[in-house]
């Protein structure tokens, strides 16, 4: 509750000091919060998938894509908070290398496991039972 009061005081103070609204400040804060929360959601979902899924290939499926997207979103959230061009370029470089190397490493692990003879867990898919009362 005190954090909400602090946020409200900050916003009102910013409105008093500036006669017009500082739109870039609002956009950067909202963009940071939204993309950071989305990135943390993807990271945590991927981790829970790696812990709970039954098979190596399904775990790889959970970890590979969510890690890439979550990392890009969190780095985007940090780019919104930068104040000079040098930091923006460094973070863009980190984002580019993560975007290139993370799917490549995932593919290499999957290919090596497949070549080594690791079998996926196979089974028949059963559709859920339908209710028979509908005409």
């Amino acid at each position, binding site marked *: 509750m005190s*954090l909400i009061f*602090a*946020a409200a005081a*900050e916003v009102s103070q910013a409105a008093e000091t500036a006669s017009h609204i500082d739109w870039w400040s609002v956009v950067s*804060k909202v963009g*940071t*919060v939204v993309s*950071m929360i989305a990135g*943390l959601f993807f*990271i*945590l979902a*991927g*981790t*829970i998938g*790696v*812990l709970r899924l039954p098979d*190596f290939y399904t*775990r*790889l499926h959970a*970890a590979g894509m969510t*890690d890439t997207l*979550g*990392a890009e979103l*969190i*780095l985007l959230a*940090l780019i919104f*908070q930068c104040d000079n061009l040098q*930091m923006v370029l*460094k*973070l863009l*470089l*980190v984002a580019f*290398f*993560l975007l290139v*190397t*993370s799917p*490549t*490493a*995932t593919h*290499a*692990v999957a*290919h*090596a*496991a497949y*070549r*080594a003879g*690791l079998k996926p867990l196979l089974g028949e898919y059963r559709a859920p039972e339908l209710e028979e009362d509908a005409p």
Partner: protein
Amino acid sequence: MSPLMGYFMLGSAILIIVSMALMLARLIGGPTLYDRLLAVNSFGTKTVLFLCIFCFIIGRPDGVDIALLYALMNFIATIAVLKFFNYRALDVTLPRGRTGGNTADGGDAL
């Protein structure tokens, strides 16, 4: 950076650390080698993100260079471990210009 945004960054860093700790469980208890490699790779990605957020929290943006270095080293380490467990040696010349076929010594290009 306002103190409220600092608290938000701190919470994000703590959540990333929780995610790294959960990934350690798969690293220790993974049934196969490839599960462990997957956990190590994902752990490295999360380490890069944690380093970037931590540099913003303490206000010293030099550590992003270390994060960049760690991202590259993580990829190279994954490929090197895969190559070692495929060929049982690291000084093997990988065949070039082919994708997916078996080589003469029974191995395969990564």
